[in-house]
């Protein structure tokens, strides 16, 4: 089993290299040079050329990429912002925990809301509760995160005055962003838990558990859900990419000083080092999360485990 884990961990290195190469490559297509953006517009051509040379912009593309990655890997140096001159790496390190907290609570909230309601929905299939929740989840799954965020802000903050509408600092600031981020994913998880549970409760081992005299609660929440949870883990992984996207938008809406806000500002100003550093960091986090989910999955599913052990014996 550890072989599988090691293989998966090693496989991530070429992927990280390739994705940074692609992002670097696309960004290099942009018109204009760094010096032209950094220096005041009345600067002479010589000054611009000199600064470009100093930044290594005159080197061939591959060499530039190599230099960038060397600095990034060795001392987390991602260059300086063209506009504020603050090192991008430093900014990312201070902002990263904020975005990670947001994404983590978003996933957690989605699971807390989506999974139990999904189970309930499956147990009460076609009853009023089920129909109502399925309808609500369809609505939520179709709604854009930022619109839900605006509605929540309008009700909880502007109308009822319960929570601060923007900024970051206390747990109170996190409630609305987390809720708006979690709702659409809760809706997805509800739908997947429901269909996975419907399949699970019709299987033999559930009947066996019942026949043994296990209480209904144990049968549903332990036996049936235990088995139904695997597809839900997968869907959490698949949705993590759009969750990061959602976090970017939500940070903008609630003015939370995370990576998303930094990135969007970078895109608006065409601040290339900022965009590059942030997208590479967020993509790397995405890959690492997928890796963790894959490994968790392998441990959780006896079929995969068995398959791998059988496979490695040959």
């Amino acid at each position, binding site marked *: 089993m550890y072989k599988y884990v090691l293989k998966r961990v090693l496989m991530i290195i070429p992927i990280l290299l390739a994705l940074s190469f692609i992002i670097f490559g696309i960004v290099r297509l942009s018109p204009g040079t760094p010096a032209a953006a950094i220096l005041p517009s009345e600067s002479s051509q010589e000054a611009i050329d000199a600064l470009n040379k100093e930044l290594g912009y005159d080197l061939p593309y591959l060499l530039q990429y190599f230099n960038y990655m060397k600095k990034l890997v060795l001392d987390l140096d991602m260059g300086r912002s063209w506009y504020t001159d603050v090192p991008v790496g430093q900014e990312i390190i201070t902002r990263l925990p904020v975005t990670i907290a947001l994404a983590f609570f978003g996933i957690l909230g989605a699971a807390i809301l989506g999974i139990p309601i999904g189970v309930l929905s499956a147990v009460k299939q076609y009853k009023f509760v089920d129909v109502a929740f399925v309808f609500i989840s369809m609505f939520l799954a179709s709604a854009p995160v930022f619109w839900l965020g*605006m509605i929540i802000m309008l009700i909880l903050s502007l109308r009822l005055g319960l929570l601060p509408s923007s900024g970051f600092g206390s747990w109170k600031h996190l409630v609305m962003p987390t809720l708006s981020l979690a709702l659409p994913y809760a809706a997805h998880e509800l739908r997947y838990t429901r269909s996975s549970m419907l399949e699970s409760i019709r299987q033999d081992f559930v009947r066996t558990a019942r026949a043994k005299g296990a209480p209904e609660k144990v049968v549903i929440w332990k036996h049936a859900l235990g088995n139904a949870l695997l597809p839900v883990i997968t869907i959490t992984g698949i949705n993590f990419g759009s969750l990061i996207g959602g976090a*970017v938008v939500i940070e903008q809406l609630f003015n939370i000083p995370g990576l998303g806000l930094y990135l969007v500002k970078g895109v608006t100003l065409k601040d290339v080092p900022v965009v590059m550093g942030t*997208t590479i960091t967020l993509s790397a986090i995405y890959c690492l999360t997928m890796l963790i989910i894959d490994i968790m999955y392998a441990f959780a599913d006896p079929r995969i485990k068995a398959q791998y052990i059988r496979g490695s014996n040959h």
Partner: protein
Amino acid sequence: MDHKDQQKNQQMHVKQNKWHETWRRLKKNKTAILGLVILIVFVLVAIFADVIAPYDKGIKMDSKNRFANPSFQNLFGTDAYGRDVFTRVIHGTRYSLSIGFFATILSMIFGIPLGAISGYYGGKVDNIIMRLVDILTSIPAIMLSLVVVTVFGASLVNLIIAIFIARIPADVRVVRSAVITLVDQQYIEASRSGGARDLHIIIRHILPNAVGTIIVQSTMNVGQLIIRASGLSFLGLGVPTPAPEWGTLLSEAREYLRSAPHMMIFPGVALILVALSINLLGDGLRDALDPKLKS
């Protein structure tokens, strides 16, 4: 009528039957039909936008009539410049639907051939294409879109480019997996031993049988890409103002959330209705095209 014609007729008949059957199953699915009806209404609104609400009212600024609440005169109220929100939402339908539609088509233009080649040939070709797809999917879609916008700037065309590029990998995967299930079928074998060229087999025998999967994926894409596009517009990185794209309208509404909530409610509801109707239709189509999957 010679033998070949007869065979052709028979083929046509089978084909017609298949679509007939699909439509029959779809008709039974009430939620899917509801989705279809809502979607058709929006398509009609997009086509007849000028008849429903002449665009003058959507651009004419009226400083005396700012932030007006919904009334008979301004069904959805007015915005910060006194423009009629109803007119802007109606005309926004054109933007959102065409962004979703064109981005889906463009992504499929790349997704179908790449997926078909990958699935049909397998081996080395498949390996190369799929590794590329793996790498692209390791970058969250919004990151790819944001990088594209950084380089090319925010505009309607660039928005479509930004979202369709990020969608290609998913389409390649879906088409490939549909093609793989077909490659081993006997009629493909028969066609190959009859001396047919690969291109002919892919176009005449494989793709027509993968059409169901492609249609379902495309339908779902339209809905998701409309939402994604509105997200970029909301960030100020999509269709620039004063164009009435729904995400742009919502971005404008953000500042006046307290004083003029109608500015955000109506474009948002329109957006959700379109996305919801497309999701319902897509789910229904999937069930109707492949009843085996439904369970």
